[in-house]
């Protein structure tokens, strides 16, 4: 009992000191976030919550700017030596949080680690860590196992952030308590389930943030995050709902910044399962769904409808001509041609958290052509398990192309080899598409690659493999005093650019 009491007091003290900290504004930025990280190690997890935090503490060789252009970060420049070798020239003035000097050794060490991490196999698996060579302290040759067009894009992903060998080895199992990167922020304390406190790094090579302390508060309810901004409880809220984004727009004390992200949502099928193996059925469904209306409703008019299975800012994106746009009459005749004049009964599997409303509207629309849909709104775990194992009839899914390149989006989602477990949850198989995708992956000429991906997208659209729904969006809300805030398509925020006015 005594110990429990003691513990209670410690927590109280922490909590109180924290609230005092929060009161001493000016040099503290408080951000409400929707997701918690799983790890403080950039290779320790691949989820958005982790990426958001590691982006503040670590840096990669290259990174994306807010228009998804690749820009140098720890590397000053790079050159393609041959199909499988890229030479990076590194900054010589970079120090880790623990004072260690950043050199090519850290780069090699990092990719040795990522080659063993289950979280980076799909993004960084093409790197041959053994063959990667340190030329000198500030020059490194990264060697690929096979020619890979979008390799540099992959290096811009947050899981490719550079870590320090000494810190990793000293940290061991407790690395998360004391993570070390080269970025502008240092972890002070991770109050699991509640908040993460960071301070600015004294060793940061770039321009230091305009404030000393950064607090990320984990607030799971979107509405609560919005209210917190409105009431001044936090400075910035990430991922507020579209509805709140509109309504907060009317508030003179709050700025709302929206950005499209690298994610799109779509309705798709198990294309290997009747009746969805019949292209006419898929085309009929495409025609029966007024996707614009769905998107308008679920995004409150803020969102754009996707014109491809990829988001526009991704390399290789080509808006499709929409051969099977909304047309109920055509839908009915297509369905009749397919032999289902009276429609049929089927199910639609959705992730209850984010797609229930879309599903309900689609259910109503499909009822018009006689397709009776039962919605199965599952939790994430169940939903994923269902579509990975092909138990779905129809499903609403989404794909986030973290690398900003079409290869990651299309090859994973539509190549025959990736059926089910690999990422092809539509169970789609088309040798023509497979060939195009394989060719594009190893092609080094980006112009040719773009052509190939255009063709893939055209085939997919013609075959009505999916019905495009909305392009993902992120809405940030910030108090009027917050300046320099930019919404980033990869859903991270470069908080070091923020200042107060």
């Amino acid at each position, binding site marked *: 009992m005594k110990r429990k009491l003691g513990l209670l007091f410690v927590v109280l003290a922490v909590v109180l000191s924290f609230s005092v900290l929060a009161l001493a504004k000016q040099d503290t930025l408080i951000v409400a976030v929707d997701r918690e990280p799983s790890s403080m190690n950039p290779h320790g997890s691949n989820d958005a919550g982790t990426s958001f935090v590691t982006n503040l503490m670590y840096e990669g060789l290259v990174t994306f700017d807010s228009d998804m252009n690749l820009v140098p970060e720890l590397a000053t420049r790079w050159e393609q030596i041959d199909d499988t070798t890229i030479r990076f020239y590194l900054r010589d003035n970079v120090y880790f949080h623990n004072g260690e000097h950043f050199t090519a050794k850290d780069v090699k060490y990092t990719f040795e680690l990522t080659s063993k991490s289950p979280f980076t196999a799909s993004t960084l698996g093409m790197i041959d860590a053994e063959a990667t060579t340190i030329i000198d302290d500030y020059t490194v040759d990264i060697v690929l196992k096979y020619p890979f067009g979008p390799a540099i894009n992959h290096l811009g992903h947050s899981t490719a952030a550079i870590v320090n060998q000494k810190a990793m080895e000293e940290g061991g199992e407790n690395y998360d308590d004391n993570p070390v990167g080269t970025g502008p922020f240092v972890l002070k304390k991770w109050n699991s389930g509640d908040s993460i406190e960071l301070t600015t790094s004294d060793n940061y090579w770039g321009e230091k943030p305009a404030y000393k302390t950064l607090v990320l508060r984990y607030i799971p*309810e*979107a*509405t609560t995050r*919005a*209210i917190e901004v409105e009431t001044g409880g936090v400075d910035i809220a990430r991922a507020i*709902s579209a*509805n*709140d984004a509109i*309504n907060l727009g009317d508030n003179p004390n709050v700025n709302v910044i929206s950005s499209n992200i690298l994610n799109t949502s779509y309705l798709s099928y198990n294309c290997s399962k009747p009746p969805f193996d019949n292209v006419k059925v898929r085309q009929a469904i495409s025609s029966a769904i007024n996707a614009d*209306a769905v998107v*308008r*409703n679920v995004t409150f008019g803020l969102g754009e409808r996707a014109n491809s299975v990829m988001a526009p800012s991704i390399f290789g994106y080509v808006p499709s001509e929409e051969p099977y746009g909304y047309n109920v009459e055509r839908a009915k005749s297509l369905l009749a041609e397919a032999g289902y004049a009276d429609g049929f009964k089927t199910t639609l599997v959705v992730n*209850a*958290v984010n797609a*229930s*409303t879309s*599903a*309900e*509207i689609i*259910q*109503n629309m499909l009822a018009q052509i006689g397709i009776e849909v*039962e*919605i*199965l*709104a*599952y*939790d994430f*775990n*169940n939903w994923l398990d269902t579509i990975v194992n092909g138990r779905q009839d129809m499903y609403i899914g989404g794909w986030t192309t973290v690398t900003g390149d079409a290869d990651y989006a299309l090859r994973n989602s539509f190549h025959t080899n990736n059926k089910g477990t690999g990422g092809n949850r539509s169970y789609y198989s088309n040798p023509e598409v497979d060939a195009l995708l394989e060719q594009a992956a190893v092609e080094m000429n980006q112009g040719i690659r773009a052509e190939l991906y255009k063709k893939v997208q055209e085939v997919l659209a013609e075959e009505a493999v999916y019905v495009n729904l909305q392009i993902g969006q992120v809405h940030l809300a910030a108090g009027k005093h917050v300046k320099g805030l930019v919404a980033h398509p990869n859903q991270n925020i470069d908080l070091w650019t923020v200042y107060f006015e």
Partner: protein
Amino acid sequence: MQSKQTDRSRKNYSLWLSAWKRLKKSRMAMFGLALFAIICLGAIFADVIAPYPYDFQNLDETFQFPNANHWFGTDSVGRDIFSRILYGGRVSLQIGLVSVLISVTLGGSLGAIAGFYGGKTDNLIMRTLDILLAIPAILLAITIVTALGPGMFNLMLAIGVSSVPSFARIVRASILSVKEQEFVEAARLSGCNDAHIIFSHLVPNIMAPIIVQITLSMALAILSASSLSFIGLGIQPPIPEWGAMLSAGRAYIRNYSHIVLFPGLAIMATILSLNLLGDGLRDALDPRLKN
């Protein structure tokens, strides 16, 4: 024996009659009964009363505040909230009833067996139930729903199972208190088998506490169901369960709080009516406890 039994059934009959008379006297209980009846009628005749089908969407009339066409306003896809609440009553009442029936049947039989046989059987059953009791009910329910997958029946099963232990305890205690009475001994001497004794002699005599518990548990079950729906487990859209309506509406509370106001009030009214009724029944069936 025969006459004794009819005697008792007459006694039982008059017991119920006088309980009903006492119940009628309690204004609170009658209010609860009336409210509950209204909710039930609304649910049963939802087809007739509701101005719109529960899944009728009008994407041009979303987020309407209460008005003449939509008494409770409309939701994010333009469905009439009043109609959905009426239909939602069906779902909630069904969940309440079925899940309580599950726990009564399971918990009741286990409790009856444990109480009647005592000894090792009792120990085995009650210790097993202790395990279920030790797991927080809502976590147990969530775990079961997660394991079974969502859906109305799974939800009812989860809620039902998680309140099995409490029913078992009540029935066991009641059985223990009546099983030593003379008529049980008489039945046993006249060669009745155990099942017969339990179901035709013991059970009728412990109906009073069970009925009260059923009423109160129904309220709890409806609340649990809405809690589970609130965290996204349970009822499949577009079925209008009140908790699911709350859950779906909570993204809009900042500006359109009517979307969550009415389902919340509906839950409250139902639970209130059941609690009032349960209290009234307890007083009526067990006059000793009447204040």
